[in-house]
């Protein structure tokens, strides 16, 4: 192939732009409505159980992805669980060095499948370990908006 190339890479142009959408508003959905209402109003987590498969899901789901049944059985779970795995962040999203490292963990809860990804707090990075018991630190009730950030972080139980 003998393309007649421009030659100098400096002559090759780039065009700069971004995605102009002002933002997205995601509805929480059938099960999500219930999950966030429970978090906001009662400070608890909500799970659901497929009675056919006898499998539970946290966060709650409206249907069972395994057998496709509709799920109508919802139940509350205390926001206290175990660190299943974790990672320690030392740089931010743009690669900048963080002043304080951030610990992010996947937390599972007693007796239900699934779990939550969230931050860990009130602990030193040296003390975090897989299997450790943690519990949620929530915003005060009147400041909760029904978002996952209503939980500030999880701390050692």
């Amino acid at each position: 192939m003998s393309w007649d190339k421009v030659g100098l890479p400096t002559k090759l142009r780039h065009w700069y732009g971004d995605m102009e959408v002002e933002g997205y508003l995601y509805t929480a959905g059938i099960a999500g409505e219930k999950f966030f209402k429970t978090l906001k109003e009662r400070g608890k987590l909500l799970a659901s159980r497929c009675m056919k498969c006898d499998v539970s899901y946290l966060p709650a789901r409206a249907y069972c992805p395994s057998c496709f049944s509709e799920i109508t059985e919802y139940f509350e779970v205390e926001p206290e669980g175990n660190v299943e795995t974790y990672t320690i962040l030392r740089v931010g999203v743009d690669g900048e060095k963080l002043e304080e490292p951030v610990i992010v963990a996947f937390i599972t809860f007693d007796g239900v499948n699934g779990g939550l990804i969230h931050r860990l707090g009130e602990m030193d990075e040296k003390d975090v370990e897989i299997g450790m018991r943690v519990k949620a630190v929530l915003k005060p009730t009147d400041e909760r908006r029904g978002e996952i950030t209503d939980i500030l972080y999880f701390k050692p139980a």
Partner: protein
Amino acid sequence: MGYKLPGTPLKRAEFEKAFKVEDKPEAKYAWAAGQALSRFLEELKNGRIVGRRCRNCGKILIPPRMYCEHCFRPTGEWVYVRPVGRIVTAVVSYIAATRERLEKPEVIGIVEFEDAPGSGIFHRLNIDPELVISRKAFGMRVKAVWKPPKEREGSINDILYFEPVGEGEG
């Protein structure tokens, strides 16, 4: 079909009240113009339109590409074309990209270059919207009107718009 379909519609007020999460993607891009379009953009700065000719089918491709998609082989040479062509289609936009009404409607269309049959670009047209609505704009001979050389930046906007070629003009 006497069937109740699933789904939970929300009126706007209900949508406002529903639990939602808001997010804005931080998606910034630098799109590479590549060999052909880089030269095209550079030549716009000089007030010229450049295409690529396929030595196999003879077609001049504008916007230029380094390959001919019809023959699937590299295009062979750069060719300047006069910035003159005919309106293939035209429309009158009364709304902006964001859907608000425009104060002054904008006319946009495709101009097929006289020197490169089958090759056109789309751009603003400086013609009366009535000529579009009456379809008199179709086939009209137009030429590019350029920004002053100092203000050009190698952008499709270095062409301000296309406007009708006057009597006895090129």
